[in-house]
């Protein structure tokens, strides 16, 4: 069962990524793929901070802020320079590769013998038990804050921006500014996943973010399929659905690997899985 537990732990670490993708793609309806770069950026900053021995709270804040800055850059390019949002994200994540590489100084670093977030409650942060507790608490807190935010007046304006721009402008919302802030928040959350995964895996690699947006999409897609069973999906349910979707998605990948499938095919399996997740609800509707 250890592969299953590992999948759940990785799923928890990636839940923030899925929440970020949920905000950009589902709430704002923007096909933002900055995540490929901002996820790595969060991990790179975490790696550097931990090696230098900075306090973990600072490292986390910095990872969030820098990734959020990357998201707001995508938002700025898309709304102020009127560049296609998909291209804006591609450009920023492409450019971030160089930023990440130059920050890291080499293509990867190991995070061995550094004090990480898993040692926050206990001295030995390597035990699975402490990792589980820290991740459960962390993700619960983030999910709770996201739910709370989406219920505020600002959150309603956020949700309406992706839903009906004409309406929300006539309600006094600066939609361009809202999109920039939304993408900042989304990528900040993605950066938090970089922060967690770097510590969970114990290393940072500049290539770790390539295609990560697909993982997030698959998880959000699973959440959608699951929410089809509810007539009125409330905000809290949608957010929790995304976390659950991430856990299930990682478990499915875990099952694939445990069946002895060559890890080289992991990306192909992921792509196939995402395709399945995306078309299953469609099949249901056309019946």
């Amino acid at each position, binding site marked *: 069962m250890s592969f299953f537990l590992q999948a759940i732990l990785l799923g928890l670490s990636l839940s923030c990524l899925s929440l970020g993708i949920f905000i950009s793609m589902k709430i704002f309806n923007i096909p933002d793929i900055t995540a490929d770069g901002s996820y790595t950026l969060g991990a790179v900053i975490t790696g550097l901070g931990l090696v230098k021995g900075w306090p973990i709270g600072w490292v986390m804040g910095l990872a969030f802020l820098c990734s959020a800055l990357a998201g707001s850059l995508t938002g700025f390019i898309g709304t102020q320079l009127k560049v296609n949002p998909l291209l804006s994200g591609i450009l920023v994540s492409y450019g971030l590769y160089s930023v990440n590489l130059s920050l890291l100084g080499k293509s990867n670093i190991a995070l061995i013998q550094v004090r990480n977030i898993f040692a926050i409650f206990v001295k030995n942060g390597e035990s699975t038990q402490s990792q589980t507790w820290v991740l459960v608490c962390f993700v619960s807190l983030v999910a709770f804050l996201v739910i709370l935010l989406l*219920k505020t007046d*600002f959150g309603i304006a956020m949700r309406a921006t992706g839903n*009906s721009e004409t309406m929300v402008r*006539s*309600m006094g919302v600066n939609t361009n500014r809202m999109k920039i802030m939304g993408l900042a928040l989304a990528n900040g959350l993605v950066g938090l996943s970089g922060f967690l995964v770097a510590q969970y895996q114990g290393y940072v690699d500049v290539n770790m973010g390539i295609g990560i947006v697909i993982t997030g999409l698959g998880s959000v897609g699973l959440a959608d399929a699951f929410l089809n069973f509810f007539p009125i999906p409330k905000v809290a349910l949608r957010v929790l659905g995304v976390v659950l979707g991430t856990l299930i998605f990682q478990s499915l990948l875990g099952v694939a690997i445990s069946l002895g499938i060559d890890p080289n095919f992991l990306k192909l399996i992921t792509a196939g899985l995402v395709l399945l997740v995306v078309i299953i609800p469609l099949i249901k509707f056309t019946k």
Partner: protein
Amino acid sequence: MIQVEAVSKTFNPGTVNEVKALDKLTLSIPTGQFLVVIGSNGSGKSSLLNLLSGGLKPDSGQIFLDKTLVSGLEEYQRSRWISHIFQNPLAGTAPDLSILDNFRLASIRTHPKSLFIGIHDTFRKKVQEKISLLGMGLENKLDKLMGTLSGGQRQALTLIMAIMDDAKILLLDEPTAALDVKSARIVMETASRIIEEYSLSALLVTHNLRDVLQYGDRVIQMGEGRILKDILKSPGVELDIRDVYSWMDREIIPDNAG
């Protein structure tokens, strides 16, 4: 109070597709006046409305709302004064949000969207009260998604949303064009009632003869970006249906018109 001073707007200037939408148009709508704008397609009605709402910016001339110069302000900034009812009933509401969420946003139209949770029991009761005025039975469906309602229901709710927060000016852009007769009547009666009750300055663009005769204090006919006729309705003086027909560029006058 709406003041439009010598406003001009030309689309695609300098090209073969050049269209002069408004030509040095000057118009003043006092507070509390309900103005009905008629004219054929391309006469500049919609351009006038969009210039007021901020969807379009004038090439020259100035627009004042309550004596504030707003020509340079964006649409979202002008929402401080303006409630806009769109021709498409789906445009004025957010379909994937609940009725209550839509109303929350409408109730903070002129306020900053802060990190405050504003949906509580008192707010719910207030919304229920306002919606019950419509008599459509929607007051008990506040948690339903807006997108599950019909166009007529959504358009009627948009009108109630318009008065949730300090309404001053109501722009109605052919609000009943996409609705069936019964929904259209409810929407127009609601509009007329809230305009009177809240002393709103209102501007209705319509192609509906019945609305021209029944609603408003003043009728203007537009053509080629200018005001061709400006008639103040006064008590006891009925508009001649034949005149209105000819202003609206209709050719056939049915016997039982109106």
